[in-house]
């Protein structure tokens, strides 16, 4: 019976459409991020002022593009159009995916580490430790998160590291609260009492007894947090506080595209679409994993 159960976990995961679709989207994102340089047809920062505001080919292309092609058949084609500076939108989207994936992964993992550590301590020790950590979390969560992130980034300056730091500082509480509750539940179980009765030090009990039992929850939380991080990063770059102008971001594209919404709506719509699909994919994956891995929901 036991063997069957462990096999069916993998099978169940593969049968869940949420996990499949979400997983596929995440895999696609990851591939785009890893191989952005090869996949993107053009340099995302390459300006071609002669070919600005070209409509995506699927949009029907524009007269300018057709004219260009007539003059110079070797001119690069912009499958998803070009922006006000004649930069290739497709290439920018692909490179934007790289930024999104880096920010999402690193900040979700770091927020996870910080929040999990404090959550484990609060849940296991309880009493004063718990009171202290829980109060900090309460106070922390009473700040509007986006505002906090904007203030933080304007204080510590822009750049990839600052954005990641801001997201970690804002979002560790999410992990802390959930892990604390779970650690509390696990601590009440007999196997933790047994471990304490054997004289195992608290560090060992937390890391090798309780943490593995919290792991399924963490996988889910990290996935969901990645979606949130993508949105936060986009918000920061929308207000011009994200990664320095050298790198391409979806939020930055939305911010710039907003100015030309009447002439070239695709400049804003395409990065928005990319973001919506990615966040939906991550949420679907996280939700699917939670449903399949969490024994309480599964029952």
């Amino acid at each position, binding site marked *: 019976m036991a063997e069957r159960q462990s096999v069916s976990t993998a099978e169940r995961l593969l049968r869940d459409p949420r996990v499949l679709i979400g997983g596929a989207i995440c895999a696609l994102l990851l591939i785009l991020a890893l191989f952005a340089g090869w996949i993107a047809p053009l340099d995302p920062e390459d300006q071609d002022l002669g070919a600005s505001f070209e409509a995506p080919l699927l949009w029907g292309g524009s007269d300018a593009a057709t004219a260009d092609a007539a003059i110079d058949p070797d001119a690069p084609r912009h499958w998803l159009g070009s922006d006000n500076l004649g930069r290739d939108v497709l290439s920018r989207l692909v490179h934007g995916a790289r930024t999104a994936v880096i920010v999402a992964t690193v900040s979700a993992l770091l927020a996870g580490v910080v929040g999990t550590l404090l959550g484990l301590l609060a849940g296991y020790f309880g009493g004063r430790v718990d009171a202290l950590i829980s109060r900090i979390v309460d106070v922390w969560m009473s700040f509007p998160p986006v505002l906090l992130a904007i203030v933080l980034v304007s204080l510590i300056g822009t750049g990839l590291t600052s954005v990641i730091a801001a997201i970690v500082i804002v979002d560790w509480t999410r992990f802390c609260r959930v892990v604390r509750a779970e650690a509390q539940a696990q601590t009440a179980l007999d*196997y933790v009492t047994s*471990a304490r009765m*054997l004289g195992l030090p608290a560090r060992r009990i937390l890391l090798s007894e309780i943490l593995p039992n919290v792991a399924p929850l963490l996988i889910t939380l990290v996935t969901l947090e990645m979606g949130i991080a993508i949105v936060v990063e986009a918000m920061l770059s929308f207000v011009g506080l994200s990664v320095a102008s050298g790198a391409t971001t979806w939020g930055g594209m939305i911010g710039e595209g907003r100015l030309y919404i009447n002439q070239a709506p695709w400049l804003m719509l395409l990065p928005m679409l990319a973001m919506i699909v990615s966040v939906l994919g991550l949420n679907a994956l996280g939700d699917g994993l939670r449903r399949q891995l969490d024994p309480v929901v599964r029952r």
Partner: protein
Amino acid sequence: MNGTAPAEVLRVEDLHLEIRQAGRASVILRGVDLAVSAGRIHALVGESGGGKSMVTKAVTGLLPETAVITQGRIVLAGQHVTHWAPREWRSVRGTVVSMVLQDPMTALNPVRRIAAQLGDVLKLHRGLRGAALQQECLRLLEQVQVRDPEAVLRQYPHQLSGGMRQRVVIAIAWACKPQLIICDEPTTALDVTVQKQVLRLIRQLAQAGQGVLMVTHDLGVVAKLCDTMSVIHGGRILEAGTVAEVFAAPRHPYTRALIAAAPRFDQPGETLTPVEDALLEQLDQEERDYDAQCEKA
């Protein structure tokens, strides 16, 4: 104490304990006396809520933060442990005192292999590594009569039956030969046939010289397995003595009622007499009187 009597591994004297929470104190233990000798099994008998588990928590240092020992003392293997700090407790756990918990389903970590869980305590307290560790794990599992110990070591708890799991739990508790082992209803969650085997196992292991405190509400277990017993109700020890004495001539009416209420296999068809409400009422009254006296004092 004379020279021929076995050494005492646990002595609890006049233990009073309160839970203080939100400015209110409720009395849990009202003067508990208890003694466990090496190589003997002492039963602590009583119904749920009688203070049994609070006694086990007190003698293992697992009391919640809200519990306060107001009076009395606990001597564990010659050391006064009554007001020990957590760090001091850690130095005796596993080596001087250990515990077998009631439910083998939850007493083992579900996501770790048996080898890791049994190995932990051997690594920590006996410094065993590598082949010696493996050897000792196998020996311990054989000692608790686990069939095919090599396979069991590689398995996870959910792959084992309840009886097997409880054997593993017992092996872990006995791994460092502690002087006192507390068994908290070790057979309640098991099948009757498995119960018998596990009890026999505990009996055998205790003969090697460990003192066992058997916490139970099952008088059948007490009669078959234990040497001495204490009956606890409402945080007081009502009666104590050797099992033979108490069963032959119970002095306290509550003990008599408990024995009458236990089903017996040798008298099928007899009607069971539950403990009378009047008696319970009387005991409750005694406790209230006692608490009132304490408050006055």
